[in-house]
């Protein structure tokens, strides 16, 4: 669990306990069997929404095919009961296992896709299963009754018992979701949702966390589906794999509040009774009124409060709340885990690295070395291949040829998060922050990425924030920072992973002179502590003060390497990059 999350978790668990007890008591009072059914269905759909929320809310991987898992649960329970006389008490766990396996099978190919392609492909799975089931002759399957051992087969004459079980299942789902929310799992998912590349560069194995979230989500959805089948006693492919089922999860969650555990619960508590009542009252005259209501509900919520009711209410009522303080940790600067390289071998050794895009040689046979504790400035005109070089080095792009070693270990051919874990921190030309997370969490992502424990990660992040001079802003959402603060925050995120090498891509871009000086002070302090840095920068006056040595790139090739003084007097560098005016001004 994340440091400082315990209090929040305890509060949420208390609310959950109160709600669950209250709801169960209300269920005991209701006698009308139709209302009782609605009371049972609310937690079922809420659970389904909670499961969708884990993948699509926290992780941002929008799934329009969650009915696949719901349906798998429903059909597993039903068919297992018919063919093996397996009680739903065991059938639901079995469905959960199969749902998890299905999630693995679906996720393995589908996570190669991003954004709307992922969403559209997820749509195809339940529909393909739906047609196959129809083909196999499972159009309508009823659960056999077991009058001799009703309880053993989850058969109750008292419908309120189903409601109690449903509440129990939902409580389980909410607890799992709360635990995820308050652990590194949740933070990794939130980071991936807001900026996957930045998360990868901070050492987060995005694919692994996405897969984990899909498996948890699929298992939970299967439980909801399996229990739904038990309550309704009859399953049809359309009623559990259909589009409207997938839409339910999306609708209740978006309506209630995305990426909050309470969102799906609120959404289901409002929409399910509303839709069911309308269906019952008007269904005979207006078939499909439920779908229309859902459609209107999600359009309205998307336009009026895109994050859902929970967040809108929270922002309105609790906006003035003080930002979360830094958790009380003894923020001793973590022992820098650099060094153990012999003084005569370079920390970073790049040899003949090339990368082409079609016919364009973006990086061509680039070689250079960076010694421990050195600050290497990489300069060159726009389009010289500087950023591409960084992208190749930290695994965002693959290299066509060449090798790069960090303290003797090969870097190329590894994934971005793996390069980060070798000890390479990276910042981006255009800042890639997690805008809705507080600054501290932004930085903790970097520390988690490096594989630190909860306590270490927090103290490392606090240390990094102090290094960057951002300690006072730690509770502010990153989206509210100024450009300079964002740059520093990105630097802190890279530092929190305790890197041996920092790759800084135009850290000073877009900053005024004074702001520049502030950032330079931070960099100079890092240099004083022995940090090794490669920095791309156009601001020559800053670079002259900062860099120990320059590498000049032009058209993807190394034009010159050497000490700053020698470089700025090199005729070819002046020709290609600095320009004659610059020289004239220097001499003046």
């Amino acid at each position, binding site marked *: 669990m994340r440091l400082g999350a315990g209090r929040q978790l305890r509060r949420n668990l208390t609310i959950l306990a109160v709600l669950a007890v209250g709801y169960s008591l209300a269920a005991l009072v209701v006698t009308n069997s139709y209302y009782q059914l609605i009371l049972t269905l609310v937690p079922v759909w809420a659970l389904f929404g909670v499961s969708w929320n884990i993948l699509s809310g926290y992780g941002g991987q929008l799934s329009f095919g969650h009915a696949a898992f719901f349906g798998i649960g429903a059909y597993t329970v039903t068919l297992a009961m018919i063919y093996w006389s397996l009680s739903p008490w065991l059938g639901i766990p079995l469905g959960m296992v199969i749902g998890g396996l299905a999630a693995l099978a679906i996720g393995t190919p589908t996570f190669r896709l991003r954004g*709307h392609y992922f969403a559209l492909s997820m749509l195809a799975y339940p529909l393909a299963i739906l047609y196959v089931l129809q*083909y196999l002759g499972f159009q309508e399957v009823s659960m056999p009754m077991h009058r001799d051992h009703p309880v053993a087969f989850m058969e109750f004459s008292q419908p309120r018992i189903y409601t109690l079980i449903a509440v129990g299942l939902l409580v389980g789902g909410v607890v799992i979701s709360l635990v995820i929310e308050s652990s590194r799992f949740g933070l990794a998912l939130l980071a991936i949702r807001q900026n996957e590349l930045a998360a990868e560069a901070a050492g987060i194995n995005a694919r692994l966390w996405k897969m984990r979230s899909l498996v948890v989500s699929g298992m939970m959805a299967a439980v909801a589906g399996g229990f739904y089948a038990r309550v309704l006693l009859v399953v049809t492919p359309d009623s559990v794999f259909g589009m409207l089922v997938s839409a339910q999860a999306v609708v209740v969650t978006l309506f209630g509040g995305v990426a909050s555990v309470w969102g799906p619960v609120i959404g289901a508590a409002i929409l399910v009774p509303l839709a069911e009542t309308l269906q019952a009252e008007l269904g005979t005259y207006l078939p499909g009124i439920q779908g229309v209501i859902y459609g209107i509900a999600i*359009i309205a919520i*998307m336009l009026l409060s895109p994050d859902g009711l929970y967040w809108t209410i929270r922002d309105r009522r609790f906006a003035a709340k003080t930002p979360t303080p830094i958790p009380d940790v003894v923020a001793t600067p973590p022992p820098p885990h650099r060094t153990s390289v012999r003084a005569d071998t370079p920390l970073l050794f790049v040899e003949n690295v090339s990368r082409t895009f079609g016919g364009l040689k973006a990086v061509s046979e680039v070689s250079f070395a960076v010694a421990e504790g050195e600050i290497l400035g990489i300069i060159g005109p726009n389009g010289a291949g500087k*950023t591409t070089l960084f992208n190749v080095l930290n695994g965002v792009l693959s290299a066509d040829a060449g090798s790069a070693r960090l303290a003797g270990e090969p870097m190329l051919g590894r994934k971005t998060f793996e390069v980060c874990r070798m000890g390479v921190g990276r910042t981006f030309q255009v800042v890639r922050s997690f805008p809705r997370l507080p600054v501290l969490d932004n930085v903790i992502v970097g520390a988690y990425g490096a594989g630190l424990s909860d306590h270490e990660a927090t103290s490392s992040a606090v240390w990094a924030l102090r290094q960057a001079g951002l300690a006072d802003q730690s509770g502010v959402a990153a989206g509210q920072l100024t450009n300079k603060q964002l740059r520093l925050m990105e630097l802190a995120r890279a530092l929190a992973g305790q890197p041996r090498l920092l790759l800084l891509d135009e850290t000073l871009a877009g900053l005024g002179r004074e702001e520049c000086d502030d950032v330079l002070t931070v960099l100079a302090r890092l240099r004083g502590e022995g940090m090794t840095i490669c920095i791309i920068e156009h601001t020559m006056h800053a670079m002259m003060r900062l860099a120990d040595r320059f590498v000049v790139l032009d058209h993807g090739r190394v034009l010159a390497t050497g000490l700053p003084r020698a470089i700025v007097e090199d005729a070819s560098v002046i020709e290609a990059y600095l320009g004659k005016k610059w020289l004239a001004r220097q001499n003046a």
Partner: protein
Amino acid sequence: MGGNGRSVDLEILIENVLNAVTAGITIGSIYGLMCIGLGLIFGIMRIVNFAQGELLMLGMFASLYLVTGGHILSFLGPYWGPFIGAICAAPLLFAGGALLHKFLISRVSGLRTAGSLDEGHFGQLIVTLGISLILQNGGQIVFGSTPVAVRTPLSAEAFLIGPIYGAATVFLNKAKLVAFFVAILVATVLYLTLEYTRLGKALRAAADNPTAATYMGIDVDRAYRIAFGLGSGITAIAGGLMATYISFGPFVGFDYVIIMYSGVVLGGMGSILGAFWGGLTVGFVQQFSALILPPQLQNAAIFVVFLMIVLLRPQGLFGRSAERA
């Protein structure tokens, strides 16, 4: 005798394959037209429209009511009426699509979301999912759920070509044949319009870079609205044409939305011609899968094909190349 049996088998095989080819071309071209509609909206404007299948469905019903319901076009007779009706569905759906864009889609697309975290795709998916739910279920309220069709005697008539090999004969369904010609005609006109007129250039510019297009004096919102309208209208024509040979209900759009996305993605994003070829290819795959698979599984086959296209052709998917770090 064995040799004779084999040759009869061969005749049947040849006949099946030839008929799959002709059906693939005719149905595929109509799919191609349908895909052009989505190609305008998704391929070029990059708006994820979940409700495209419902626009197709509305095209079918618009054509149905024009031809039989309102008796507006019934004077044209059962031969010409259905096809003119299909074309007349276009302006209705153009207006509908433009309104939809003006009041809903524009709020989650175009300039408003340019450069935002996911280019507004999240909002578009949700809003168009909502539109899709309203149209499907509202369609059930308005149109009822009994399957209907735009009747033309042509759908029961066929040209026979052959016998080509032994008794192998190709059957060309007349309704599908006329629909095919109409589809090709509409696709050609649209292609020429987009390629050579000022409107077409404005649309493409607005799609390529909405912000830059604004600076060039292009009314981007209007361009998007027109493109969305055109995309709706084109898909509606395809719907009207299909209505002459299939029976349909309010939920018909769903099967086709996947076909449309398959076609557009397969053809490569952002290309009108590509979308047409993509749709044609999907039509072929569908017809040939019918040779092997039982009819219930044909739709499942399309979903599998869609998944394979999306998973195996990533270069077609990330048309805007890799993310710039």
